[in-house]
């Protein structure tokens, strides 16, 4: 999937490059090179100022907005008469320049993301500047005539940008689902949800720049990109605090280990396994986060025990005791006041599938039950025999203790490793 997207991007750029070169050979150089240069700089700088959005998305909002504006710039008085080929070539070159410091210093850059954004910007440029829609030519020429109804021009741009963003989201989802081995539908839903925020800010900034160049010329570019910089800053802070939150829960989940209540690495292993199963079963990003936190904290109730359970394996404790520990853990988590969903998951992690039924026990609890049982049986081993023995033992409790759908997911997840 990733290779395909990169190939399409490279092909598109080569085509654009050829068209541009032919155009230049025919003597059609773009007028007003300073416009091209200004957007080149803006896109390159924007791509360099990358940001991690919540949910682990690598993005360059400023670069993307500048690229959208460059693709949508109206002809107005002939100072942006370049074609879609020029847009693609300039955006690609600027992106590469902007990303190169990151690549050289070895920092992670989402290459697939860069590739699919180039494709969608190219599509936008072609739709606006090259596809003829009437006798006057492409949209970029048609809207020139609407001098009295400038708001209609804005509406056309909004429509085009929305279309571009949808295409981009679809590509991003396909790539992400292939990478994370998660279901396309739930990934698409998550990506659409995330695009509503940052995406609309990027899109409207792009449109605003394109419209504002009419009265303000190139001044519009820095002036209107600056607020987006602050939006980006807000998102970075959001992503940072979320990362911090994750670290805190991860660390504090280990207090039971250091206090001698549970086996080393147990919580983190259960969380990893539970996450893989959650993705396999198509949980949404939000539900996955709750699942992860609940899995990390599933043994926190043991802190209230006077004496640690031998080896910390809750599977060995009596069912009543297990339920009591889960209840105590839920109480601890509920104290936070902000993790009620997580507390419920922790509370119901011991519920047996058959007795409580599917409706009353959240899927996340059923996942944790299986992941916890598997880790208690198998532990930190890669030994094949012990692993299959663990699976087998869980299989014995199928349809009575464990949800068969979740157990099937466990086998699938284990088969992937």
């Amino acid at each position, binding site marked *: 999937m990733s290779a395909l997207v990169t190939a399409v991007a490279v092909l598109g750029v080569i085509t654009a490059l050829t068209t541009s070169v032919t155009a230049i050979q025919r003597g059609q150089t773009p007028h007003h090179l300073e416009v091209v240069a200004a957007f080149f700089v803006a896109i390159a700088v924007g791509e360099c100022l990358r940001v991690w959005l*919540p949910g682990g998305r690598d993005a360059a909002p400023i670069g993307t907005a500048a690229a959208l504006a460059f693709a949508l710039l109206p002809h107005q008085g002939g100072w942006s008469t370049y074609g879609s080929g020029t847009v693609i070539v300039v955006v690609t070159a600027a992106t590469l320049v902007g990303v190169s410091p990151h690549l050289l210093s070895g920092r992670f850059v989402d290459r697939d993301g860069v590739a699919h954004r180039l494709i969608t910007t190219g599509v936008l440029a072609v739709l606006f500047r090259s596809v003829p829609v009437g006798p006057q030519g492409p949209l970029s020429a048609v809207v020139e005539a609407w001098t009295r109804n*400038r*708001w209609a*021009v*804005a509406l056309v741009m909004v429509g085009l940008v929305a279309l571009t963003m949808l295409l981009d989201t679809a590509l991003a989802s396909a790539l992400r689902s292939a990478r994370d081995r998660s279901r396309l539908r739930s990934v698409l839903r998550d990506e659409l949800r995330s695009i509503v*925020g*940052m995406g*609309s*800010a990027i*899109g*409207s*900034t792009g*449109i*605003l720049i394109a*419209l*504002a160049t*009419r*009265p*303000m*010329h*190139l*001044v519009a570019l820095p*002036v*209107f990109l*600056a*607020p*987006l*910089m*602050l*939006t980006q800053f*807000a*998102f970075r*802070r*959001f992503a940072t*605090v*979320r990362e*911090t*939150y994750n*670290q*805190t*829960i*991860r*660390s*504090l989940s*280990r*207090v039971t280990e*250091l*206090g*001698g209540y549970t086996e080393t690495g147990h919580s983190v292993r259960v969380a990893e396994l539970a996450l893989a199963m959650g993705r396999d079963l198509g949980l949404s990003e939000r539900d996955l986060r709750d699942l992860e936190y609940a899995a990390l904290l599933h043994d*926190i109730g043991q*802190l*209230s025990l*006077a004496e640690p359970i031998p080896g910390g394996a809750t599977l060995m404790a009596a069912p009543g005791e297990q339920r009591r520990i889960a209840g105590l853990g839920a109480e*601890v*988590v509920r*104290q*936070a*006041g*902000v*993790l009620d969903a997580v507390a419920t998951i922790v509370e119901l992690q011991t519920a047996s599938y058959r007795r409580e039924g599917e409706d009353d026990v959240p899927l996340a609890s059923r996942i944790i039950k299986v992941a916890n049982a598997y880790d208690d049986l198998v532990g930190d081993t890669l030994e094949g025999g012990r692993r299959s023995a663990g699976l087998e033992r869980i299989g014995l409790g199928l349809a009575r203790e464990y949800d068969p759908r979740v157990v099937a997911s466990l086998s699938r997840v284990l088969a992937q490793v």
Partner: protein
Amino acid sequence: MIWDDWMGGELSIESRRVHVFVSVVALVAIVGTVVAARNWPVQRWLPVLALSALCVIGDQWRVRRLPNDTDLSFNAIVQLAALVLAGPVAALVVAASPALFALRNRRLITQVFNVAMMAVVTLVAGTSYYVFGGAWGQGQGSSSTLILLHVAVPLMLANSAQCLANAALLAGVISLDQKVPYREVIVGILRSGGVAYVGYGIFGLLLAVLWDGAEIGALSAVLVLAPLFVARWAFAQYAEEHAAHDRTVAALVRAVEAKDFYTRGHSERVAKASVLIARVVGLSQQRTSTLHFAGMLHDVGKLAVPTRVLQKTGALSDEEFAAIARHPVRGLEMVREMEFLGEAFKGILHHHERLDGRGYPMGLSGTSIPEFARIISVADAFDSMTSTRSYRQARDVEQALVELDRCVGTQFDPTYVDALHTALERTAWQPTTTVDPVAAVVEGVDELDHDDPRAPIRRQVATPHRGVG
């Protein structure tokens, strides 16, 4: 405006100085409004009406209260746009419109102050726009040079003046009401929101320029709103997540403390006392927040100490003491992956060091003990003495301070003991009332809680552990 509402809540009724201050601000607001209305009449009402509606809607949509360093109200932005489109009085009308619709359940004096401050701040913005050569009304969008000289630059300067005026008035009322030095308050306010305030002012420019210059009229407001709402949303998410994080840490610390009945709430109180000290010695906001976490987490390592040893009231054997003395190191191990803690790591590891070098785990002395650790050790001892233990009742604050003074130089850094004195003069300390009465105060026990400075000094039996960094 970011600080348009005074976030401090209610004014204390006793303070006459607050009343005088509010009256002066209100008087300036009234006089200023009359003068402005005479000199700068509003020429076009359409943008004024549209922008007022926007302001009202925006104010209604402000669902959650955000901490004031992250809130972003776009009223200031819309006011700046109104200033460019129709002049200072238009901006004043737009600014006042939400007040008519949103009569919150607040005391009269708070409302008067908020409205008066808003009026003064808007007038400051309008006047400085005029002074710096700004032009308003139709036809400002003919060329980019004109826009830059007569709209953009004056508007940015006006926005900065607006920000300063807002911070100055707000700091005035807060410092009078809460008796905190004015400088401290205004620096805090500007540091927490100044950049965002000036940054988002650009949106005001954008709105005005698009309205007239790009001839798309009221649609410009809609287009401008989108990024604005997203920014607010992101700030709101950040604030929410930040608060959630704090509460989660507190809940988990409480869970760890549950092991020992007598130390419940200890960590939170140590964190609080450390922050009080930090405020007096003037630690930056960032460091103070880190110190708070250090205080919260300084004792998590006690989880690794057997409950039996922690709760023992008699003399400790060498092994038992060694087990207790390991808790800072174990604590550090537990939280090591929480990267944001940074400087807090040293505070956690060294909070039982003594100035004379007879503490643990590393036996550091004097200024080689990290600052955070020196602060926390004072707060730790103070809370230990003012709360109930299994073998004694809580002492009162004066007694505890006397005890701290006695140990200055040997155990505690005088700077922070003095700072605690100062802090407690400003803020009253609530000594803990443990829920259960102490069932049996053990008489004649010579061994004390190890956080208590009166506890005899012990040499660590085990070899010292490696430190951080």
